[in-house]
């Protein structure tokens, strides 16, 4: 199983993501530079956090037109698994691979802290291995993570079970005080209608080792591995 971790100028969570792939999951993984178009046979793509292209114009707006993203569009259209984390989530929204947009935090503050997440649905390649009812404690670090979608899009997200995670308190209850950025209906992460592309503002790759204070990011990566194994098993059958 092979992961591709994209690298844009000013990506800064690419190393954390590849560290988790290689050192924690013990899998193969490579960086793919933004000017490259070859995903080198990857089974899954991680679009990492950071400040791609300096966040100029809008977060993710320039990265979406980079050569590598044309390959990711193709990869996603063919059903490949793509996970966007933080700036990666912004890039995927700008690219139209995910619905909605991420705007300035309601508080106008850059928020860097651990938050709690409630998994809304386990019916996705990104959530299937998260134990039922488990509240995840994962860090965030962003200034523009306020998820916005218009009423019609929100309706569609709910109807098609595309909301994957919501911010909540340690007991799993959603509230304005547990929502770090003002996201509409406390949304922290969503997937596309085909369920093979997902994005979230929190950083699961920073929560995969006990020495980092939380291992709650692991079930998200384990979900991806479970989905890939199931895919391989059904191919072989």
């Amino acid at each position, binding site marked *: 199983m092979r992961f591709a971790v994209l690298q844009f100028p000013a990506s800064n969570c690419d190393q954390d993501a590849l560290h988790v792939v290689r050192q924690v999951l013990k899998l193969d993984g490579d960086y793919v530079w933004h000017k490259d178009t070859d995903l080198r046979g990857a089974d899954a793509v991680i679009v990492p956090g950071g400040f791609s292209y300096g966040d100029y114009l809008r977060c993710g707006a320039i990265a979406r037109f980079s050569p590598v993203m044309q390959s990711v569009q193709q990869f996603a259209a063919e059903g490949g698994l793509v996970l966007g984390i933080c700036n990666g989530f912004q890039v995927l929204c700008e690219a139209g691979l995910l619905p909605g947009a991420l*705007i300035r935090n309601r508080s106008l503050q850059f928020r860097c802290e651990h938050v709690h997440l409630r998994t809304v649905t386990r019916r996705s390649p990104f959530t299937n291995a998260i134990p039922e009812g488990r509240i995840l404690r994962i860090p965030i670090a962003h200034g523009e993570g306020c998820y*916005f979608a218009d009423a019609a899009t929100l309706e569609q997200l709910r109807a098609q079970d595309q909301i994957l995670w919501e911010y909540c308190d340690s007991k799993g209850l959603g509230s304005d005080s547990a929502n770090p950025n003002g996201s509409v209906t406390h949304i922290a992460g969503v997937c596309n209608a085909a369920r093979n592309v997902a994005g979230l503002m929190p950083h699961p790759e920073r929560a995969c080792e006990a020495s980092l204070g939380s291992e709650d990011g692991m079930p998200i990566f384990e979900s991806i591995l479970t989905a890939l194994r199931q895919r391989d098993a059904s191919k072989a059958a």
Partner: protein
Amino acid sequence: MKAKIIITPKKAVLDPQGKTVQNALEHMGYSGIQAVHVGKYIEVDLAPGSDREAARKALDQASHRFLSNPIIEDYRLEIVD
């Protein structure tokens, strides 16, 4: 010839920056302000002899695809001499 593109947050989108500027203006004593919206202004210098209508068409497309995000922003494009 120049293109001027003014980008503003859509009315339905939370604009905490506009609200903060509005509050500051009110604190400074400027009254009668109903709302403030903070956006972006982009100026594009066009090559001499550019066709005005062709430039408008191209930049209108660029504004829609790239310079603004239609989910959260509106834009106004103007071509001036």
